[in-house]
């Protein structure tokens, strides 16, 4: 799967996509692939506030539990309830329908500190080489 060029990415495998004055946050295709069958999600409530890199939720597959970190300082404005009911959608459409939350950013300039699609792809390729050694 390709990584949309208009998204920003974290080294912890989240993505963020600007939509007018808010942004959608999700986990990457690489993340869902590493986790395997995703069966459970814990997401924050509308109105919750997070600083960048603070955990905002959990995703669990059959084999593992992982924290989801907020890519930016933000307030939650929407939660994907459909996804909480059907976490397996994360395995099918991680960059699209399976967004996790929508947020209002405190400071758009924080996006500049995140990875571009190209940088993220290079990062996961590098990680793969490391884990092969």
């Amino acid at each position, binding site marked *: 799967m390709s990584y949309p060029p208009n998204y920003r990415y974290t080294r912890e495998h989240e993505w963020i996509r600007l939509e007018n004055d808010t942004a959608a946050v999700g986990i990457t295709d690489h993340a869902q692939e590493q986790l*395997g*069958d995703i*069966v*459970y999600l814990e997401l924050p409530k509308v109105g919750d506030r997070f600083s960048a890199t603070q955990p905002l939720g959990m995703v669990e*597959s*059959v*084999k593992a539990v*992982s*924290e989801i*970190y907020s890519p930016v300082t933000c307030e939650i404005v929407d939660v994907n309830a459909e996804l909480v009911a059907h976490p397996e959608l994360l395995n099918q459409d991680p960059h699209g329908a399976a967004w996790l939350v929508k947020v209002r950013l405190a400071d758009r300039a924080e996006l500049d500190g995140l990875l571009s699609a190209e940088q993220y792809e290079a990062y996961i390729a590098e990680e793969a080489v490391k884990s092969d050694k």
Partner: protein
Amino acid sequence: MVAFGGWEMPVEYSGIVAEHMAVRTHAGLFDVSHMGEIEVRGHEALRLVQYVTSNDAARLSTGQAQYSGLMYPQGTLVDDLLVHKMADGHYLLVVNASNQDRDFAWIREHNRFDCEVRNAGDAYTQLAVQGPRAPAILQKLTETDLSVIRYYWFTHGRVDGVECLIARTGYTGEDGFEIYFAPGESERLWNRLLEAGREDGLIPCGLGARNTLRLEAAMALYGHEIDETHTPLEANLGWICKLEKGDFLGREALARQKQEGVRRRLAGFEMTGRGIARDGYPVYVNGNEAGYVTSGSPAPFLKKNIGLAYLPAEFCQAGRELEIGIRKQRVAARLVETPFYKRQHKS
């Protein structure tokens, strides 16, 4: 998201859920060549096996296998293992990969009998074909009549021309076979089995599905339900403790525990609230921390979240309400009978 913690291939091929379901409904092929093998041979081989293990190997006929415990004097487990009687004076022990060297050293250290102990891990590789279609699939590649091999018996035969020990054993709660043979042929046999089983729905399965399958069947995993701090009596493995068979390592400790009463026990639970119990999570009874989860996971066939936990024996009745500490919350669960899953079709 952070690192995906300590898993090594082959954890999964097509996905744990798909692999798990294939084994329950059709068949799965597991590469379990990492399992360790130890051979005990000689005039007094039986005496050594009897002395270091808890089950009664004297009851085995040639061609028969049994589940057993490799014991410490304090009644806890060095490892769990399968004991195969190859012939009079010849036993093949199949042990956990990570314990193999320790097991071998332990058995040899207690060998004051007229027999030889050999670490034979390099002489064998192991593949497991598990699931209701397993007999039909394996039968395509062998002239040995598999229908006459009963559960926990084995025979020698050729599978696609390769000399094998063919045992009707497994770690999935399904019918199936574990085959042992010289390592050189493992890749070819793996591919041949997949080919032969394709039309029956056989797919390759990894360690992830192996774990969820054994958990649904409530089979113990060393390092989780059993270890050097728990006895088989506590782990609901009283059936492998044959105290009347004669002296063996741990016998006195087990006899004492049996007499005094087992104070903590392994019990099975299912989540009734929303959440997945995982290994090590605390368990609360009546609001107080009372034990911990040894294995917890979604159960793909049962479509529930299940687990095993050590608890004070007085709490271990099916139906008892519990709470599992999942991160910052306590989530409702209930004790249930084990195994969680029991197969309908008989081998």
